[in-house]
Protein backbone atom coordinates (compact mmCIF):
# COMPACT_ATOMS: atom_id res chain seq x y z
CA UNK A 1 0.00 0.00 0.00
CA UNK A 2 1.92 3.06 -1.22
CA UNK A 3 2.16 6.19 0.90
CA UNK A 4 -0.14 8.73 -0.67
CA UNK A 5 -2.37 11.55 0.35
CA UNK A 6 -5.39 10.14 2.22
CA UNK A 7 -7.80 12.23 0.14
CA UNK A 8 -6.43 10.95 -3.15
CA UNK A 9 -6.28 7.41 -1.81
CA UNK A 10 -9.96 7.35 -0.82
CA UNK A 11 -11.07 9.18 -3.97
CA UNK A 12 -9.24 6.72 -6.23
CA UNK A 13 -10.60 3.72 -4.33
CA UNK A 14 -14.14 5.02 -4.54
CA UNK A 15 -13.96 5.99 -8.20
CA UNK A 16 -12.48 2.69 -9.33
CA UNK A 17 -14.58 0.40 -7.17
CA UNK A 18 -16.95 -0.20 -10.08
CA UNK A 19 -14.89 -0.12 -13.25
CA UNK A 20 -17.85 -0.28 -15.65
CA UNK A 21 -19.59 2.68 -14.03
CA UNK A 22 -16.31 4.57 -13.98
CA UNK A 23 -15.83 4.01 -17.70
CA UNK A 24 -19.40 5.00 -18.57
CA UNK A 25 -19.17 8.20 -16.54
CA UNK A 26 -15.82 9.05 -18.07
CA UNK A 27 -17.16 8.52 -21.58
CA UNK A 28 -20.15 10.74 -20.77
CA UNK A 29 -17.81 13.46 -19.53
CA UNK A 30 -15.46 12.94 -22.47
CA UNK A 31 -18.27 13.26 -25.01
CA UNK A 32 -18.16 17.01 -24.58
CA UNK A 33 -14.47 17.10 -25.40
CA UNK A 34 -14.96 14.66 -28.27
CA UNK A 35 -17.48 17.01 -29.87
CA UNK A 36 -15.62 20.24 -29.28
CA UNK A 37 -12.31 19.10 -30.77
CA UNK A 38 -13.53 18.24 -34.28
CA UNK A 39 -15.78 21.34 -34.22
CA UNK A 40 -12.73 23.47 -33.52
CA UNK A 41 -10.79 21.50 -36.11
CA UNK A 42 -13.45 22.09 -38.75
CA UNK A 43 -13.65 25.74 -37.88
CA UNK A 44 -9.86 26.10 -38.14
CA UNK A 45 -9.96 24.10 -41.36
CA UNK A 46 -12.67 26.24 -42.94
CA UNK A 47 -10.90 29.47 -42.06
CA UNK A 48 -7.58 28.08 -43.16
CA UNK A 49 -9.09 26.89 -46.46
CA UNK A 50 -10.73 30.26 -47.00
CA UNK A 51 -7.51 32.11 -46.41
CA UNK A 52 -5.64 29.70 -48.63
CA UNK A 53 -8.18 30.03 -51.44
CA UNK A 54 -8.17 33.81 -51.09
CA UNK A 55 -4.39 33.93 -51.27
CA UNK A 56 -4.19 31.31 -54.00
CA UNK A 57 -6.58 32.90 -56.45
CA UNK A 58 -7.38 36.45 -55.42
CA UNK A 59 -4.92 38.39 -53.32
CA UNK A 60 -1.57 36.65 -53.27
CA UNK A 61 0.39 37.52 -50.14
CA UNK A 62 0.54 41.22 -50.95
CA UNK A 63 -1.73 43.32 -53.15
CA UNK A 64 -0.95 46.73 -54.60
CA UNK A 65 -3.86 48.97 -55.60
CA UNK A 66 -3.87 52.45 -57.14
CA UNK A 67 -4.15 55.44 -54.80
CA UNK A 68 -7.66 56.69 -53.99
CA UNK A 69 -7.75 59.33 -56.73
CA UNK A 70 -6.31 57.13 -59.42
CA UNK A 71 -7.92 54.49 -61.61
CA UNK A 72 -4.75 52.61 -62.56
CA UNK A 73 -1.25 51.82 -61.44
CA UNK A 74 1.20 53.33 -63.99
CA UNK A 75 4.51 52.12 -65.50
CA UNK A 76 3.79 48.56 -64.63
CA UNK A 77 6.88 47.19 -66.39
CA UNK A 78 9.08 49.27 -64.13
CA UNK A 79 7.10 48.34 -61.00
CA UNK A 80 7.19 44.65 -61.82
CA UNK A 81 10.89 44.93 -62.51
CA UNK A 82 11.54 46.47 -59.08
CA UNK A 83 9.45 43.88 -57.35
CA UNK A 84 11.04 40.91 -59.09
CA UNK A 85 14.46 42.06 -57.88
CA UNK A 86 13.47 41.70 -54.24
CA UNK A 87 14.54 38.43 -52.63
CA UNK A 88 11.91 35.98 -51.37
CA UNK A 89 9.41 37.11 -54.00
CA UNK A 90 8.13 34.07 -55.80
CA UNK A 91 5.87 35.74 -58.34
CA UNK A 92 4.39 39.04 -59.45
CA UNK A 93 1.30 39.41 -61.60
CA UNK A 94 -0.32 42.62 -62.79
CA UNK A 95 -4.06 42.51 -63.46
CA UNK A 96 -6.17 44.94 -65.41
CA UNK A 97 -9.91 45.00 -64.73
CA UNK A 98 -12.91 46.41 -66.48
CA UNK A 99 -16.70 46.14 -66.20
CA UNK A 100 -18.08 44.50 -69.31
CA UNK A 101 -21.25 43.00 -70.64
CA UNK A 102 -21.13 39.49 -72.05
CA UNK A 103 -23.72 38.32 -74.49
CA UNK A 104 -24.58 34.91 -75.81
CA UNK A 105 -27.65 34.81 -78.05
CA UNK A 106 -30.41 36.37 -75.92
CA UNK A 107 -28.50 36.07 -72.65
CA UNK A 108 -26.88 39.25 -71.42
CA UNK A 109 -24.71 39.34 -68.29
CA UNK A 110 -22.75 42.18 -66.75
CA UNK A 111 -19.47 40.82 -65.54
CA UNK A 112 -16.06 41.89 -64.24
CA UNK A 113 -13.39 41.44 -66.84
CA UNK A 114 -9.91 40.53 -65.65
CA UNK A 115 -6.88 40.86 -67.87
CA UNK A 116 -3.84 38.91 -66.78
CA UNK A 117 -0.55 37.59 -68.14
CA UNK A 118 -0.89 33.80 -67.94
CA UNK A 119 2.83 33.08 -67.43
CA UNK A 120 3.10 35.67 -64.63
CA UNK A 121 -0.11 34.39 -63.13
CA UNK A 122 1.15 30.81 -63.01
CA UNK A 123 4.07 31.86 -60.80
CA UNK A 124 1.88 33.95 -58.53
CA UNK A 125 -1.53 32.38 -58.14
CA UNK A 126 -3.25 29.05 -58.65
CA UNK A 127 -6.11 30.40 -60.68
CA UNK A 128 -4.90 28.59 -63.79
CA UNK A 129 -5.22 25.28 -61.86
CA UNK A 130 -8.91 25.88 -61.24
CA UNK A 131 -10.00 25.15 -64.77
CA UNK A 132 -12.78 22.58 -64.71
CA UNK A 133 -13.50 22.51 -68.42
CA UNK A 134 -11.18 23.27 -71.34
CA UNK A 135 -7.87 25.08 -70.78
CA UNK A 136 -6.52 28.26 -69.24
CA UNK A 137 -5.16 31.12 -71.30
CA UNK A 138 -1.64 31.20 -72.72
CA UNK A 139 0.55 34.25 -73.34
CA UNK A 140 -0.21 34.26 -77.06
CA UNK A 141 -3.99 34.01 -76.75
CA UNK A 142 -5.73 37.19 -78.02
CA UNK A 143 -9.09 35.89 -79.29
CA UNK A 144 -9.72 33.63 -76.36
CA UNK A 145 -11.58 34.13 -73.12
CA UNK A 146 -11.90 31.99 -69.99
CA UNK A 147 -15.17 32.27 -68.07
CA UNK A 148 -15.94 31.78 -64.41
CA UNK A 149 -18.32 28.87 -63.81
CA UNK A 150 -21.14 31.07 -62.49
CA UNK A 151 -20.95 33.31 -65.53
CA UNK A 152 -20.80 30.34 -67.89
CA UNK A 153 -23.90 28.87 -66.24
CA UNK A 154 -25.81 32.15 -66.54
CA UNK A 155 -24.92 32.53 -70.22
CA UNK A 156 -25.47 28.84 -70.83
CA UNK A 157 -22.23 28.70 -72.73
CA UNK A 158 -19.68 25.89 -72.94
CA UNK A 159 -16.07 25.65 -74.06
CA UNK A 160 -15.64 25.87 -77.80
CA UNK A 161 -18.51 28.33 -78.16
CA UNK A 162 -18.17 32.09 -78.54
CA UNK A 163 -19.40 35.08 -76.59
CA UNK A 164 -19.58 38.79 -77.35
CA UNK A 165 -17.83 41.14 -74.95
CA UNK A 166 -18.89 44.78 -74.77
CA UNK A 167 -16.22 46.79 -72.94
CA UNK A 168 -16.92 49.80 -70.76
CA UNK A 169 -15.83 52.09 -73.59
CA UNK A 170 -18.47 50.57 -75.89
CA UNK A 171 -16.10 48.44 -77.91
CA UNK A 172 -17.61 45.07 -78.88
CA UNK A 173 -15.66 41.93 -79.75
CA UNK A 174 -16.30 38.23 -80.06
CA UNK A 175 -14.18 35.75 -78.19
CA UNK A 176 -13.81 32.02 -78.23
CA UNK A 177 -14.43 30.35 -74.84
CA UNK A 178 -11.23 28.45 -74.19
CA UNK A 179 -12.00 27.27 -70.67
CA UNK A 180 -14.28 27.49 -67.66
CA UNK A 181 -12.83 27.82 -64.18
CA UNK A 182 -14.21 27.39 -60.66
CA UNK A 183 -12.40 28.97 -57.69
CA UNK A 184 -15.10 28.77 -55.02
CA UNK A 185 -15.08 32.56 -54.76
CA UNK A 186 -18.22 34.16 -56.13
CA UNK A 187 -16.58 37.31 -57.44
CA UNK A 188 -14.00 35.39 -59.47
CA UNK A 189 -16.42 32.73 -60.70
CA UNK A 190 -18.67 35.48 -62.03
CA UNK A 191 -15.82 36.99 -64.03
CA UNK A 192 -14.30 36.62 -67.48
CA UNK A 193 -10.54 36.40 -68.13
CA UNK A 194 -8.60 37.77 -71.08
CA UNK A 195 -4.94 38.17 -71.91
CA UNK A 196 -3.82 41.45 -70.34
CA UNK A 197 -2.26 42.68 -73.55
CA UNK A 198 -5.61 42.26 -75.34
CA UNK A 199 -7.42 44.21 -72.63
CA UNK A 200 -4.74 46.93 -72.57
CA UNK A 201 -5.25 47.43 -76.28
CA UNK A 202 -9.02 47.51 -76.06
CA UNK A 203 -9.02 49.99 -73.18
CA UNK A 204 -6.02 51.98 -74.36
CA UNK A 205 -4.38 51.26 -71.04
CA UNK A 206 -0.91 50.20 -72.08
CA UNK A 207 1.50 49.49 -69.27
CA UNK A 208 -1.22 50.01 -66.69
CA UNK A 209 -2.83 47.77 -64.10
CA UNK A 210 -5.76 47.81 -61.70
CA UNK A 211 -3.84 45.76 -59.15
CA UNK A 212 -0.64 43.83 -58.74
CA UNK A 213 -0.54 40.65 -56.70
CA UNK A 214 2.68 39.37 -55.17
CA UNK A 215 3.44 35.90 -53.90
CA UNK A 216 6.21 35.40 -51.36
CA UNK A 217 8.28 32.34 -50.57
CA UNK A 218 7.04 32.53 -46.98
CA UNK A 219 3.65 33.89 -45.93
CA UNK A 220 5.13 34.99 -42.60
CA UNK A 221 7.12 37.67 -44.47
CA UNK A 222 3.99 39.52 -45.61
CA UNK A 223 4.13 42.32 -43.04
CA UNK A 224 7.83 42.80 -43.54
CA UNK A 225 7.50 42.89 -47.31
CA UNK A 226 4.62 45.32 -47.19
CA UNK A 227 7.01 47.80 -45.64
CA UNK A 228 9.80 46.86 -48.04
CA UNK A 229 7.61 47.33 -51.09
CA UNK A 230 6.36 50.67 -49.81
CA UNK A 231 9.99 51.71 -49.49
CA UNK A 232 10.53 51.01 -53.23
CA UNK A 233 8.73 54.24 -54.05
CA UNK A 234 5.84 52.54 -55.79
CA UNK A 235 2.80 54.80 -56.06
CA UNK A 236 0.03 52.67 -54.73
CA UNK A 237 -1.71 51.27 -51.67
CA UNK A 238 0.09 48.17 -50.41
CA UNK A 239 -1.88 45.67 -48.36
CA UNK A 240 -1.12 42.27 -46.91
CA UNK A 241 -3.43 39.33 -47.58
CA UNK A 242 -4.95 39.72 -44.12
CA UNK A 243 -5.78 43.36 -44.74
CA UNK A 244 -7.14 42.48 -48.13
CA UNK A 245 -9.29 39.53 -47.04
CA UNK A 246 -11.47 41.53 -44.66
CA UNK A 247 -14.49 39.35 -45.36
CA UNK A 248 -12.59 36.30 -44.15
CA UNK A 249 -11.66 38.15 -40.97
CA UNK A 250 -15.31 39.05 -40.49
CA UNK A 251 -16.31 35.45 -41.06
CA UNK A 252 -13.65 34.31 -38.61
CA UNK A 253 -14.93 36.64 -35.89
CA UNK A 254 -18.49 35.39 -36.51
CA UNK A 255 -17.25 31.85 -36.24
CA UNK A 256 -15.37 32.72 -33.04
CA UNK A 257 -18.59 34.13 -31.59
CA UNK A 258 -20.54 31.01 -32.53
CA UNK A 259 -17.72 28.82 -31.28
CA UNK A 260 -17.68 30.65 -27.94
CA UNK A 261 -21.43 30.24 -27.62
CA UNK A 262 -21.00 26.55 -28.30
CA UNK A 263 -18.25 26.34 -25.72
CA UNK A 264 -20.42 28.05 -23.10
CA UNK A 265 -23.28 25.68 -23.86
CA UNK A 266 -20.92 22.71 -23.65
CA UNK A 267 -19.64 23.98 -20.32
CA UNK A 268 -23.18 24.30 -19.00
CA UNK A 269 -24.18 20.87 -20.34
CA UNK A 270 -21.05 19.22 -18.95
CA UNK A 271 -21.50 20.95 -15.57
CA UNK A 272 -25.12 19.87 -15.32
CA UNK A 273 -24.41 16.24 -16.21
CA UNK A 274 -21.40 15.96 -13.92
CA UNK A 275 -23.27 17.85 -11.20
CA UNK A 276 -26.19 15.42 -11.34
CA UNK A 277 -23.75 12.53 -11.36
CA UNK A 278 -21.81 13.71 -8.33
CA UNK A 279 -25.00 14.60 -6.48
CA UNK A 280 -26.27 11.06 -7.02
CA UNK A 281 -22.95 9.58 -5.94
CA UNK A 282 -23.02 11.61 -2.73
CA UNK A 283 -26.58 10.46 -2.06
CA UNK A 284 -25.39 6.86 -2.34
CA UNK A 285 -22.45 7.45 -0.01
CA UNK A 286 -24.14 9.22 2.89
CA UNK A 287 -23.36 6.44 5.35
CA UNK A 288 -19.75 6.28 4.22
CA UNK A 289 -19.39 10.02 4.65
CA UNK A 290 -20.83 9.72 8.15
CA UNK A 291 -18.26 7.04 9.02
CA UNK A 292 -15.51 9.20 7.59
CA UNK A 293 -16.50 12.12 9.77
CA UNK A 294 -17.03 9.90 12.80
CA UNK A 295 -13.47 8.56 12.66
CA UNK A 296 -12.19 12.13 12.57
CA UNK A 297 -12.15 13.49 9.02
CA UNK A 298 -12.79 17.23 8.89
CA UNK A 299 -15.53 18.72 6.72
CA UNK A 300 -12.85 20.07 4.41
CA UNK A 301 -11.43 16.55 4.02
CA UNK A 302 -14.82 15.26 2.88
CA UNK A 303 -15.20 18.21 0.50
CA UNK A 304 -11.79 17.54 -1.00
CA UNK A 305 -12.51 13.84 -1.48
CA UNK A 306 -15.67 14.58 -3.48
CA UNK A 307 -13.96 17.30 -5.52
CA UNK A 308 -11.03 14.98 -6.20
CA UNK A 309 -13.43 12.30 -7.45
CA UNK A 310 -15.05 14.90 -9.67
CA UNK A 311 -11.65 15.84 -11.02
CA UNK A 312 -10.67 12.22 -11.63
CA UNK A 313 -13.77 11.78 -13.79
CA UNK A 314 -12.87 15.02 -15.53
CA UNK A 315 -9.29 14.01 -16.25
CA UNK A 316 -10.24 10.57 -17.51
CA UNK A 317 -13.05 12.07 -19.56
CA UNK A 318 -10.65 14.57 -21.08
CA UNK A 319 -8.18 11.83 -22.01
CA UNK A 320 -10.84 9.61 -23.58
CA UNK A 321 -12.60 12.54 -25.23
CA UNK A 322 -9.33 13.89 -26.61
CA UNK A 323 -8.48 10.54 -28.15
CA UNK A 324 -11.92 10.31 -29.74
CA UNK A 325 -11.97 13.96 -30.83
CA UNK A 326 -8.48 13.94 -32.31
CA UNK A 327 -9.23 10.72 -34.21
CA UNK A 328 -12.35 12.26 -35.75
CA UNK A 329 -10.47 15.45 -36.60
CA UNK A 330 -7.64 13.51 -38.22
CA UNK A 331 -10.15 11.52 -40.22
CA UNK A 332 -11.83 14.70 -41.45
CA UNK A 333 -8.45 16.15 -42.32
CA UNK A 334 -7.60 13.18 -44.49
CA UNK A 335 -11.20 12.63 -45.74
CA UNK A 336 -12.77 16.09 -46.11
CA UNK A 337 -16.53 16.44 -45.85
CA UNK A 338 -18.10 16.87 -49.28
CA UNK A 339 -20.85 19.48 -49.25
CA UNK A 340 -21.65 18.79 -52.90
CA UNK A 341 -20.10 16.94 -55.81
CA UNK A 342 -18.04 19.96 -56.77
CA UNK A 343 -14.39 19.50 -55.95
CA UNK A 344 -14.11 22.90 -54.34
CA UNK A 345 -17.13 22.37 -52.09
CA UNK A 346 -15.42 20.45 -49.34
CA UNK A 347 -14.69 21.20 -45.73
CA UNK A 348 -11.60 19.66 -44.25
CA UNK A 349 -10.55 19.85 -40.65
CA UNK A 350 -7.25 21.28 -39.53
CA UNK A 351 -5.55 18.82 -37.22
CA UNK A 352 -3.40 20.02 -34.36
CA UNK A 353 -2.72 18.70 -30.87
CA UNK A 354 -3.42 22.24 -29.59
CA UNK A 355 -7.10 21.61 -30.37
CA UNK A 356 -7.20 19.63 -27.14
CA UNK A 357 -6.32 22.60 -24.95
CA UNK A 358 -9.52 24.68 -24.75
CA UNK A 359 -12.02 21.77 -24.53
CA UNK A 360 -9.88 20.09 -21.84
CA UNK A 361 -9.71 23.21 -19.69
CA UNK A 362 -13.45 23.75 -20.08
CA UNK A 363 -14.39 20.20 -19.13
CA UNK A 364 -12.01 20.16 -16.16
CA UNK A 365 -13.47 23.46 -14.97
CA UNK A 366 -16.96 22.10 -15.52
CA UNK A 367 -16.26 18.98 -13.45
CA UNK A 368 -14.80 21.04 -10.63
CA UNK A 369 -17.69 23.52 -10.65
CA UNK A 370 -20.20 20.72 -10.89
CA UNK A 371 -18.65 18.90 -7.95
CA UNK A 372 -18.74 21.96 -5.69
CA UNK A 373 -22.33 21.80 -4.49
CA UNK A 374 -22.42 18.00 -3.93
CA UNK A 375 -19.04 18.29 -2.14
CA UNK A 376 -20.25 21.09 0.08
CA UNK A 377 -23.42 19.16 0.84
CA UNK A 378 -21.44 16.06 1.71
CA UNK A 379 -19.23 18.01 4.09
CA UNK A 380 -22.27 19.31 5.97
CA UNK A 381 -23.85 15.90 6.53
CA UNK A 382 -24.95 15.20 10.11
CA UNK A 383 -22.80 12.32 11.37
CA UNK A 384 -25.42 10.46 13.35
CA UNK A 385 -28.11 10.68 10.68
CA UNK A 386 -25.56 9.61 8.09
CA UNK A 387 -24.32 6.58 10.02
CA UNK A 388 -27.86 5.36 10.41
CA UNK A 389 -28.81 6.19 6.81
CA UNK A 390 -30.15 3.28 4.78
Amino acid at each position, binding site marked *: *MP*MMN*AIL*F*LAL*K*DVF*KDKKTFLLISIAVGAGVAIMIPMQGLFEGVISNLYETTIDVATGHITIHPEEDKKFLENIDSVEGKLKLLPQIKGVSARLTDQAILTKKEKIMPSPLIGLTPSDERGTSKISERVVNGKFLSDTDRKEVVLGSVLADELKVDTGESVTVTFSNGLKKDYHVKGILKTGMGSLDSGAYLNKKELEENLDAKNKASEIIVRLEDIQLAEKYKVLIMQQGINGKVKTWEEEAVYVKRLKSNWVFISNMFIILSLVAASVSVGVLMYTRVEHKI*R*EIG*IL*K*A*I*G*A*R*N*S*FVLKVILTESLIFGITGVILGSLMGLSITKYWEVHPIMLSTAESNVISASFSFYLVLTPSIIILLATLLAGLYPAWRASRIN*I*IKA*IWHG
Partner: protein
Amino acid sequence: MVNIIETRDLSKTYLMGKVEVPALRGVNIAVEKGEFVAIMGSSGSGKSTLLNMIGMLDTPTSGKVIIEGVDVSEMDENQRADFRLNKLGFIFQFFNLFMELTALENVAFPILIVKRKDFEERAMRLLDLVGLSDRANHKPAELSGGQQQRVAIARALANEPALLLADEPTANLDTKSSEQIIEMLMELNKSGQTIVMVTHEPELGKRADRIIWLKDGMIKNEF
Protein backbone atom coordinates in the same frame (compact mmCIF):
# COMPACT_ATOMS: atom_id res chain seq x y z
CA MET B 1 -7.28 7.70 39.85
CA VAL B 2 -7.63 10.32 37.13
CA ASN B 3 -10.97 10.87 35.48
CA ILE B 4 -10.67 10.53 31.74
CA ILE B 5 -14.31 11.47 31.14
CA GLU B 6 -16.55 13.77 33.08
CA THR B 7 -19.98 15.02 32.17
CA ARG B 8 -21.46 17.89 34.13
CA ASP B 9 -25.18 18.43 34.07
CA LEU B 10 -25.25 17.15 30.52
CA SER B 11 -28.53 17.61 28.66
CA LYS B 12 -29.66 17.04 25.11
CA THR B 13 -33.05 17.95 23.72
CA TYR B 14 -34.16 17.09 20.20
CA LEU B 15 -36.74 19.04 18.29
CA MET B 16 -39.23 16.73 16.51
CA GLY B 17 -41.28 19.20 14.51
CA LYS B 18 -42.59 21.55 17.20
CA VAL B 19 -42.20 19.03 20.00
CA GLU B 20 -39.12 19.08 22.20
CA VAL B 21 -37.92 15.63 23.19
CA PRO B 22 -35.41 15.54 26.06
CA ALA B 23 -33.01 12.66 25.41
CA LEU B 24 -30.65 13.47 28.30
CA ARG B 25 -31.46 15.43 31.42
CA GLY B 26 -28.69 16.70 33.61
CA VAL B 27 -26.44 13.63 33.45
CA ASN B 28 -23.31 13.62 35.59
CA ILE B 29 -20.88 10.78 35.11
CA ALA B 30 -17.18 10.21 35.58
CA VAL B 31 -15.05 7.49 34.05
CA GLU B 32 -11.58 6.81 35.38
CA LYS B 33 -8.60 6.03 33.24
CA GLY B 34 -8.41 2.31 32.59
CA GLU B 35 -12.03 1.66 33.50
CA PHE B 36 -14.42 -0.48 31.50
CA VAL B 37 -17.88 1.11 31.86
CA ALA B 38 -21.13 -0.18 30.41
CA ILE B 39 -24.01 2.20 29.79
CA MET B 40 -27.28 0.33 29.87
CA GLY B 41 -30.96 1.06 29.71
CA SER B 42 -34.08 0.27 27.78
CA SER B 43 -34.75 1.58 24.31
CA GLY B 44 -35.12 5.38 24.41
CA SER B 45 -33.34 5.73 27.74
CA GLY B 46 -30.67 8.00 26.22
CA LYS B 47 -27.71 5.62 26.34
CA SER B 48 -26.72 6.07 22.68
CA THR B 49 -27.25 9.82 23.00
CA LEU B 50 -24.88 9.87 25.98
CA LEU B 51 -22.30 7.92 24.00
CA ASN B 52 -22.70 10.31 21.04
CA MET B 53 -22.08 13.27 23.41
CA ILE B 54 -18.97 11.67 24.87
CA GLY B 55 -17.84 10.70 21.35
CA MET B 56 -18.39 14.28 20.12
CA LEU B 57 -20.60 13.04 17.31
CA ASP B 58 -23.19 15.51 18.50
CA THR B 59 -23.23 18.62 20.69
CA PRO B 60 -25.08 18.98 24.00
CA THR B 61 -27.96 21.40 24.46
CA SER B 62 -26.45 22.32 27.82
CA GLY B 63 -23.84 21.06 30.22
CA LYS B 64 -20.26 19.99 29.66
CA VAL B 65 -18.26 17.05 28.45
CA ILE B 66 -14.69 16.97 29.67
CA ILE B 67 -12.27 14.47 28.21
CA GLU B 68 -8.73 14.25 29.56
CA GLY B 69 -9.30 17.55 31.32
CA VAL B 70 -10.40 19.33 28.11
CA ASP B 71 -13.87 20.82 27.86
CA VAL B 72 -14.88 19.52 24.46
CA SER B 73 -18.45 20.87 24.50
CA GLU B 74 -17.33 24.30 23.29
CA MET B 75 -15.10 23.06 20.47
CA ASP B 76 -15.85 23.92 16.86
CA GLU B 77 -16.35 21.27 14.18
CA ASN B 78 -12.73 21.06 13.10
CA GLN B 79 -11.49 20.80 16.67
CA ARG B 80 -14.03 18.04 17.37
CA ALA B 81 -12.97 16.15 14.24
CA ASP B 82 -9.31 16.40 15.19
CA PHE B 83 -10.07 15.27 18.72
CA ARG B 84 -12.04 12.26 17.48
CA LEU B 85 -9.21 11.32 15.12
CA ASN B 86 -6.48 11.47 17.73
CA LYS B 87 -8.14 10.72 21.04
CA LEU B 88 -11.18 8.54 20.41
CA GLY B 89 -11.84 5.18 18.77
CA PHE B 90 -15.31 4.09 17.69
CA ILE B 91 -16.81 0.63 17.36
CA PHE B 92 -20.29 0.61 15.86
CA GLN B 93 -23.13 -1.86 15.91
CA PHE B 94 -23.06 -2.32 12.14
CA PHE B 95 -19.24 -2.32 11.91
CA ASN B 96 -19.26 0.67 9.52
CA LEU B 97 -16.20 -0.32 7.54
CA PHE B 98 -15.43 1.15 4.11
CA MET B 99 -16.59 -1.60 1.76
CA GLU B 100 -14.22 -0.71 -1.08
CA LEU B 101 -11.12 -0.90 1.15
CA THR B 102 -9.42 -4.09 2.32
CA ALA B 103 -9.14 -4.93 6.02
CA LEU B 104 -5.61 -3.54 6.04
CA GLU B 105 -6.67 -0.33 4.27
CA ASN B 106 -9.61 0.16 6.62
CA VAL B 107 -7.31 -0.06 9.64
CA ALA B 108 -4.57 2.04 8.02
CA PHE B 109 -6.89 4.81 6.86
CA PRO B 110 -7.09 6.86 10.09
CA ILE B 111 -3.30 6.58 10.37
CA LEU B 112 -2.96 7.80 6.78
CA ILE B 113 -5.09 10.85 7.63
CA VAL B 114 -2.61 11.87 10.35
CA LYS B 115 0.19 11.20 7.86
CA ARG B 116 2.21 8.70 9.86
CA LYS B 117 4.76 7.05 7.60
CA ASP B 118 4.54 3.71 9.40
CA PHE B 119 0.81 3.44 8.66
CA GLU B 120 1.08 0.06 6.96
CA GLU B 121 3.25 -1.58 9.62
CA ARG B 122 1.07 -0.26 12.41
CA ALA B 123 -2.09 -1.44 10.65
CA MET B 124 -0.63 -4.94 10.22
CA ARG B 125 0.31 -5.04 13.91
CA LEU B 126 -3.24 -4.13 14.87
CA LEU B 127 -4.69 -6.75 12.56
CA ASP B 128 -2.35 -9.24 14.14
CA LEU B 129 -3.55 -8.14 17.57
CA VAL B 130 -7.15 -8.97 16.59
CA GLY B 131 -6.07 -12.20 14.93
CA LEU B 132 -6.74 -11.20 11.32
CA SER B 133 -3.35 -10.64 9.74
CA ASP B 134 -4.07 -13.49 7.31
CA ARG B 135 -7.18 -11.63 6.08
CA ALA B 136 -5.45 -8.31 5.55
CA ASN B 137 -6.20 -8.17 1.83
CA HIS B 138 -9.82 -9.19 2.09
CA LYS B 139 -12.62 -6.69 1.71
CA PRO B 140 -15.41 -6.51 4.33
CA ALA B 141 -17.82 -8.38 2.05
CA GLU B 142 -15.43 -11.34 2.21
CA LEU B 143 -15.35 -11.37 6.01
CA SER B 144 -17.82 -12.71 8.57
CA GLY B 145 -19.63 -10.38 10.96
CA GLY B 146 -17.29 -11.23 13.78
CA GLN B 147 -14.25 -10.67 11.59
CA GLN B 148 -15.61 -7.34 10.41
CA GLN B 149 -16.11 -6.23 14.00
CA ARG B 150 -12.55 -7.25 14.84
CA VAL B 151 -11.31 -5.13 11.91
CA ALA B 152 -13.44 -2.30 13.31
CA ILE B 153 -11.75 -2.72 16.71
CA ALA B 154 -8.34 -2.62 15.05
CA ARG B 155 -9.35 0.54 13.20
CA ALA B 156 -10.61 2.11 16.41
CA LEU B 157 -7.14 1.52 17.92
CA ALA B 158 -5.33 2.99 14.89
CA ASN B 159 -4.25 6.28 16.45
CA GLU B 160 -3.76 4.97 20.01
CA PRO B 161 -6.89 6.57 21.38
CA ALA B 162 -7.27 7.57 25.00
CA LEU B 163 -10.80 6.23 24.92
CA LEU B 164 -12.61 3.44 23.09
CA LEU B 165 -16.35 3.91 22.55
CA ALA B 166 -18.45 0.93 21.58
CA ASP B 167 -22.10 1.25 20.62
CA GLU B 168 -23.81 -2.15 20.87
CA PRO B 169 -20.71 -3.90 19.48
CA THR B 170 -22.21 -7.38 19.62
CA ALA B 171 -25.84 -6.63 18.66
CA ASN B 172 -25.34 -7.93 15.14
CA LEU B 173 -23.27 -10.97 15.98
CA ASP B 174 -23.93 -14.57 16.88
CA THR B 175 -23.14 -15.83 20.38
CA LYS B 176 -19.70 -17.18 19.54
CA SER B 177 -18.60 -14.02 17.75
CA SER B 178 -20.09 -11.87 20.52
CA GLU B 179 -18.03 -13.76 23.06
CA GLN B 180 -14.89 -13.26 20.97
CA ILE B 181 -15.52 -9.54 20.76
CA ILE B 182 -16.21 -9.04 24.44
CA GLU B 183 -13.12 -11.09 25.28
CA MET B 184 -11.10 -8.87 23.03
CA LEU B 185 -12.45 -5.74 24.69
CA MET B 186 -11.66 -7.14 28.10
CA GLU B 187 -8.11 -7.96 27.01
CA LEU B 188 -7.67 -4.42 25.76
CA ASN B 189 -9.01 -3.09 29.02
CA LYS B 190 -6.59 -5.27 30.96
CA SER B 191 -3.73 -3.64 29.06
CA GLY B 192 -4.94 -0.23 30.19
CA GLN B 193 -7.43 0.83 27.51
CA THR B 194 -10.37 2.87 28.82
CA ILE B 195 -13.63 1.58 27.32
CA VAL B 196 -17.18 2.89 27.41
CA MET B 197 -19.69 0.49 25.94
CA VAL B 198 -23.41 0.86 25.31
CA THR B 199 -25.30 -2.40 25.48
CA HIS B 200 -28.76 -3.67 26.18
CA GLU B 201 -27.48 -7.18 27.01
CA PRO B 202 -27.17 -7.75 30.77
CA GLU B 203 -24.66 -10.60 30.24
CA LEU B 204 -22.33 -8.18 28.50
CA GLY B 205 -22.91 -5.43 31.02
CA LYS B 206 -21.80 -7.75 33.81
CA ARG B 207 -18.38 -8.10 32.19
CA ALA B 208 -17.68 -4.39 32.66
CA ASP B 209 -16.15 -2.87 35.81
CA ARG B 210 -19.19 -0.68 36.30
CA ILE B 211 -22.67 -0.26 34.86
CA ILE B 212 -24.37 3.11 34.51
CA TRP B 213 -28.08 2.54 34.15
CA LEU B 214 -30.14 5.19 32.37
CA LYS B 215 -33.85 5.72 32.34
CA ASP B 216 -35.70 8.54 30.61
CA GLY B 217 -32.48 10.43 30.02
CA MET B 218 -31.34 10.35 33.65
CA ILE B 219 -29.06 8.12 35.63
CA LYS B 220 -31.18 5.66 37.50
CA ASN B 221 -28.42 3.57 39.01
CA GLU B 222 -24.69 2.88 39.02
CA PHE B 223 -23.20 -0.37 40.11
